[in-house]
Structures are given as C-alpha cells and as structure tokens.
C-alpha cells in the first residue's frame, strides 16, 4: 500500500479546470520532483493534498485513511507538511522565535495556556535546527528584514517542526539567485535526508530536478503528462513540448541561464 495516494483528483473553479484526474502514488523515502508550467496545477495539487482546497472530485489516501475532507491542521498533525511558494512565516518575530513557536505547538496536541513556551529542550531543539539549516547569523533578526532565501529556509524548517513523514516543498528555490539555488538545495536536502522523510518538491529548474529527484512528475494544464525516473520524463516528447521547451540546453558547468526553462507551447 502506498504511503500517499490520490485517486482521480479533480478541481474546478467555475469553468476553469485546475486539476483533472490526478492519480499519484507515493512511497516511503521517495524524493519526487514536480515540474510544469505556471498554472499547470502543481500548487493546486499541493493545496489539495494538504487540505487547503477541497477537490471537486476524487480522493486522497494517506496510510490507508481517506484524508480528502480533512483540514490543513489535521493533516499536519497526521504527518504531511508543506512549505510555500511565498514563505509563510511570522514577520514580526525573530527567526529563532519562529522556530521555537513551531516546535512548541508541534509538541502538544493542544497549545498550553500555562506552561511557558521557552522550555530548555525546545530551545535546544531550535538551536539544532538553526545550525542544521545554516541560519546562525540570522538567528535573532526580525524575519521581515531577512533575505528571501533565508525566509525560504525558515519556511521549510518550520514545515519540518512536526517531523512529518511527507513534506511537500513548493518551489523551494524560487526567488533565489541562480548561484544560491544549489547551496540552498544542498542544505535542505541534507537536512531532510537525515530524517528519512518522503519529499515532493516543485521546481522549475531542470538541473535541480535531475540532481535531487529520483522520480519526476510532469504537470501540464491540470493533468499529469509523465511520471517516472528523471531521465525518462525529461526526455519525453510531450514533456518537452508542454513543459521544458523544444530545445533543452544542457548546462556545461557554465553560469546559469543556459539551463532548461519551462515554457514552450504553453502560453
């Protein structure tokens, strides 16, 4: 039995079909890259799996249980977490306080109104996370003042606060300069690999997809075009046409901009 499975997942907004008959099965410890042009349905997929959107049709199964109608907070507690395209963090607090709060509420089923949040073991755990994600120099700064890349890391770190079995990362390197992308992915993937979590990450950069993903799912116009090993999917003709672009430039170790970009026939 698959860890996470969607069956016939469909989502329509009036006359717009954001997702149509999505069938995906995910097993433990997989690292799956999700690609597709903007509007192809990738974030809609993540929103449905994590309960933010309710599908028009179809169902979502997690560890044999139907989670289609569950709220995001219930799904989080069951073991599926996510990061966001635009980092959803607490802007007026410090980076450390963000993590502390995340860990603090993850620990108990219901947040306490009496026990202080600043428990030594929580502080220690937060320090570990700061170190592991290489954010030490930003520890006490207000998040509103931090660079986008650090906010992305924080967003991902907070997603991991619940020690989920599955984590979905929505464009973890978007908004980050090309030279930093790999650095961030190395840090993130290193941290995640240690926990044994199953990872699905949405990416536009094909090089990152092939380097970190053991499997690739390609979305286009709300449907799945291809689902398989990176070499196979990235070479697929339809994927080339609707996602990557007719000509795939292979990077030769030179500066970015030569890497394959999505677009092509999809306007």
């Amino acid at each position, binding site marked *: 039995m698959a860890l996470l499975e969607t069956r016939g997942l469909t989502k329509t907004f009036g006359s717009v079909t954001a997702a149509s008959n999505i069938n995906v099965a995910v097993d433990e410890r997989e690292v799956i890259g999700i690609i597709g042009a903007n509007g192809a349905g990738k*974030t809609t997929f993540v*929103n449905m799996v994590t309960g*933010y959107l309710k599908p028009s049709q179809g169902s979502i199964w997690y560890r044999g249980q139907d989670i289609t109608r569950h709220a995001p907070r219930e799904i989080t507690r069951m073991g599926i977490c996510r990061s*966001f*395209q*635009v980092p*959803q963090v607490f802007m007026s607090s410090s980076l450390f306080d963000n993590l502390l709060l995340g860990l603090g509420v993850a620990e108990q089923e219901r947040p306490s109104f009496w026990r202080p949040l600043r428990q030594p073991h929580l502080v220690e755990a937060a320090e570990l996370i700061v170190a592991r994600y290489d954010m030490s120099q930003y520890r006490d700064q207000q998040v509103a003042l931090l660079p986008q890349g650090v906010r992305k890391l924080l967003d991902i770190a907070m997603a991991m606060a619940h020690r989920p079995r599955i984590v979905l990362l929505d464009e973890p390197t978007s908004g980050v300069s090309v030279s930093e992308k790999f650095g961030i992915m190395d840090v993130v993937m290193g941290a995640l690999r240690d926990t044994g979590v199953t990872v699905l990450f949405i990416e536009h950069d094909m090089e990152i997809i092939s380097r970190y993903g053991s499997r690739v799912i390609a979305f286009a116009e709300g449907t799945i075009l291809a689902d398989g090993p990176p070499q196979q999917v990235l070479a697929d003709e339809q994927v080339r046409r609707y996602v990557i672009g007719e000509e795939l430039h292979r990077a030769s170790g030179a500066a970015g901009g030569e890497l394959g970009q999505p677009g092509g026939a999809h306007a």
Partner: protein
Amino acid sequence: MLTLLAILVDGLVYASWLFIVAVGLSLIFGVMKILNVAHGSLYAFGAYAAATLIGAYFNAGWAPLGSFAVMLLAAVAVGAILGLALERGLLRFMYGRDEVIIVLVTYAAFLILEDSILLIWGTNPYFAFQPYALLGNASVGRLAFANYDLSMIGLSVVTGVLLWWALTHTRQGKLLQAVIHDREMAQALGINVTRVFTATFVLGAMLGALGGAVTAPQISVTPGIGVEVIVVAFAVVVIGGMGSIPGAAIGALIVGLIRAATVHLFPQVELFVIYAVMSLVLAFRPAGLFGRAAARKI
C-alpha cells in the same frame, strides 16, 4: 389585513430611511475600506442644518414648497464642507494604516463633532415640522399615513437608481467600481485614487447628511440622534455587503420590513431585531448578501 398593510408601508418607509442613511456608509466602506463612524455626526449635522435653515426659511415667509430645496441644500452644504474637511484635513494622512486604526480616527472625529453640535446648537431640541405637515395625509380605511413618510420611499428609490446608474453607466462610476475591486490595480492603471477617495467621501457625507436633513421634519432634533444611526447603518451595510448599492437596498428592505413586523407584532424585540438579522445573515453568508469572497492567498 390592515395590519399587513401597516407593516408593509411602515416597513418600506423605514427601509427607505435606512437606505438613504446606509448607502453613503456602504459606498465609503466599499471604495476606501473605511468604516466611517463619523457618519452619524454627518447625519446629525444634516438634521441640525436642515432644521435651522427651515426655521429661518419659514420665518422669512417664502413659498412653503421651497423648503424641500432648502433641506437638500443643507445636506449638500454639510456634506461638502464637513466631508472635505474630514477627508482632506484628517483621513488622508491615515491611508495605508491599519483599518481598525482608521476606524478609531473616525470615532475620534465623531466625538469631536458631537460636542461641536452641543457648542453650536446647545442642548435644546429643534423642531422643523413645517415640511412634514405641508404634505398632508393619506388614509386607507382606519390607517393614516403621512405623505411625507411616503415620499421618503420615492426619494430613496430615486437616490438608489441615480446612484446605481451613475456607478454603472458613467465613466466616473466605473472608475469607482475599479477602485472598489482592487485599489492597487486601479492605481497601477493610472486612476487617480486620491481624487476618487475625496469624491467618494464627500458623496457619502452628503448622503449621510441627506438622511439627517430629510429626517429633521419628522423628529425633534436633539444631540445624540447621530449615535444610534451608526450602528444601525453599519448593520444594513454588513447585511448587504460592502460597497454594494443593491446590497444596501436589499439589506434596508429586509431590516425595514422585519422591524415593522416586530413593532406591530412583538414590540419587545424591536430594538435588537436588526442585530439578530445581521448575525443570522453573517452566519450563512460571511461577506454579506452581495459581498464578494476574498482572493486566493497561497
């Protein structure tokens, strides 16, 4: 049977009053996202100004029918002067701040204006019954209706239709609607949002003052008449959905008819039935009857 007619007519009259009073608030709320607590003071100022002018007018012995023009004049003047003063002199420094803070600013303005009324007109009540008596009565069986009250219905319909037409068929109206939908986008398209704000606020102020002006002949004008108006007007706006003229009309109609029914049938609940209706509507339609849902955030 007659009770039903009484409820219907009373309901429509009250609904008309509610509409005139609430539509200005709804407009300002829809365009500027500001809940103008001072709307109550504009209403009161309109009433006092109308009462004063009507008094002077009849003392001067001019043609009685002209007093209606005087009321309109009072409303326009109050709306223009106070509206401009409030918007240009106070509110425009607050744009971009938290909307609750802006509400508190309008609340402060309300407090200042309320005492200004005391300073200008004192605590004694003002009366301006002449226009009311002028129009006489109409009777159906045992029921008598004042024609003045009935003409309120006409006034609110005319106002509503004019406003709706202006919003949907004139260029300025469409600019207003654009700002209601998305202020930033409107600015990006080159719409002078600042000017739209000023115009909207003054228009809303005039409508609020108009509500007071046409009410003056029906009541004794005393300090404090503005206070109840705010909450009632807000309830109507919330029920109908912010920035929606049809919404304000439907909201006023619902509240007016229900209140008339309770006054005749269950007088005990009269005072708060409007809030009960508001809570009920919000329980099923959180954005009001004609409100729009918010856009997706993630």
